């Protein structure tokens, strides 16, 4: 028992070391990739330092008091009728008073640091040349819409946000059904998405990279499989991506993908999905106009490969039980062309 207790400081240390070892991870608040996350990370480290120091001091004091000889305070027998001497009372009172004072000061410092960081975070953003990205939480995927003054520049995609490095991006959060929470730890803290309300936060990446985000508010059966990716790239890369995404879907070039398109248009797919450039314009499921260009399918659940696309269509309820993708009866000979077609939508 005492060995386990003694293990705590060691464990803390190990955890600290491990978390620094997390550097380079794609979903970690301790590998900040932008101004906002940087502030949060600094605060985290500051808290860790202060609280570790407190922890160490408390444990050390405890150990010292358990093991040292009795100096300074007169040894008095511990009897029922025992009344501490006035000197002992004074000493004890002073010690407790000082400890309480120091605790209050530390808590106050933490409070100031926390509020200060919050205030700083709220002041970042709103700068010129910013980008507005509307993120709508759905059970269990993310609809992404890039807003623009020019309506025809508005761009809709899903489960993947591309941002240019060094440009502030406002996340405009909405929800279609229940409360979700948008959390890309490498870029910012959590922000709840609430039905019929708009919440906002600003993110800004300071270097190119790919980071994973996750719904951080329990939202039903597949909450755990509601992820998204943020891809930060250079301005020219971002503009090229944006331009490509604005184009309608490429027409199928060969007989195989042409057949795949026919299968798509003649089945249940069109009841929910959009592929711009075809007659499919459903809007209750992810826009598939450029689905082939994305990193993952099923909201970060599977890497975007042809095999996974086919597997997902054939049996979505095996991969993500309870999700809202219908089990569509696709003939086995149609599955391959359909997956080929979707994969071709780069």
């Amino acid at each position: 028992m005492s060995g386990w207790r003694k293990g705590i400081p060691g464990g803390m240390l190990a955890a600290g070391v491990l978390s620094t070892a997390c550097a380079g991870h794609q979903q970690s608040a301790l590998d900040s990739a932008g101004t906002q996350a940087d502030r949060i990370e600094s605060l985290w480290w500051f808290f860790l330092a202060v609280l570790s120091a407190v922890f160490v001091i408390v444990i050390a004091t405890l150990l010292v008091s358990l093991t040292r000889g009795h100096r300074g305070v007169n040894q008095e027998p511990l009897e029922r009728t025992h009344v501490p001497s006035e000197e002992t009372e004074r000493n004890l009172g002073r010690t407790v008073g000082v400890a309480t004072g120091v605790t209050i000061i530390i808590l106050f410092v933490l409070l100031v640091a926390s509020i200060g960081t919050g205030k700083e975070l709220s002041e970042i953003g709103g700068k010129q040349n910013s980008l507005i990205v509307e993120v709508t939480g759905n059970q269990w995927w993310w609809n992404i819409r890039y807003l623009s003054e020019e309506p025809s520049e508005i761009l809709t995609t899903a489960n993947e946000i591309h941002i240019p490095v060094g440009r502030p991006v406002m996340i405009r959060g909405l929800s279609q059904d229940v409360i979700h929470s948008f959390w890309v730890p490498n870029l910012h803290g959590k922000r709840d998405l609430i039905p019929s309300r708009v919440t906002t936060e600003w993110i800004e990446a300071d270097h190119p990279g790919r980071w994973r985000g996750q719904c951080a508010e329990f939202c039903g059966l597949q909450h755990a499989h509601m992820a998204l990716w943020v891809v930060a790239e250079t301005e020219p890369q971002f503009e090229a991506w944006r331009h490509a995404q604005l184009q309608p879907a490429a027409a199928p070039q060969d007989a195989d993908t042409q057949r795949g398109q026919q299968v798509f248009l003649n089945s249940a797919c069109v009841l929910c999905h959009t592929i711009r450039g075809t007659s499919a314009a459903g809007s209750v499921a992810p826009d598939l106009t450029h689905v082939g260009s994305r990193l993952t399918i099923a909201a970060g659940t599977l890497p975007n490969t042809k095999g996974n696309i086919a597997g997902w269509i054939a049996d979505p309820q095996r991969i993500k039980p309870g999700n809202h993708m219908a089990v569509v009866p696709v003939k086995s000979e149609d599955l391959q062309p359909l997956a080929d077609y979707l994969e071709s939508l780069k």
Partner: protein
Amino acid sequence: MRGWTAILCFLALTACQREQRNLRPSPARVVIFNDAAREDQIQPGGAQSMPQVNNPDEGNAYDVSEGQRLFDWYNCSGCHAHGGGGIGPPLIKTEWIYGGEPANLFDTIVKGRPNGMPAWGGRIPEYQVWQLVTFIRSMNHEEPKAATPARPDTIEQSPQTLQNKANGVTR
């Protein structure tokens, strides 16, 4: 004693079919339905024993709520509103043009009806048609009360609006 009660309650709950979520329909339920339901009581040569078509989702709360979601997703509510009707006839009613039994509703959705009801066969998978049928039946309290949602999903009338309406004030 208390422990036993708790265990019994737990067992009772887990046994409840209402709570069952058939998230992964068997292939047989995804195939398009072909059986013909009778819509008329007059059957020449005397009443026949009808092919028994059971609604597989009967009494299941999860299927009712999935049906409710799909009712909006597939735009059923666009024509039938939330049961009151509009472009299409109401669905909260006692007299059905083409029969109100689950098999008739299934037929209506899959085959369509000549006066404007679209034929959804080949688009909506069979298991979802049954979910819709179950939801429509629940609108008419033909599903167990325990499986029926207590209140509708649509806009609530605010007390203020009701008062405004009564006073004819609309500011």
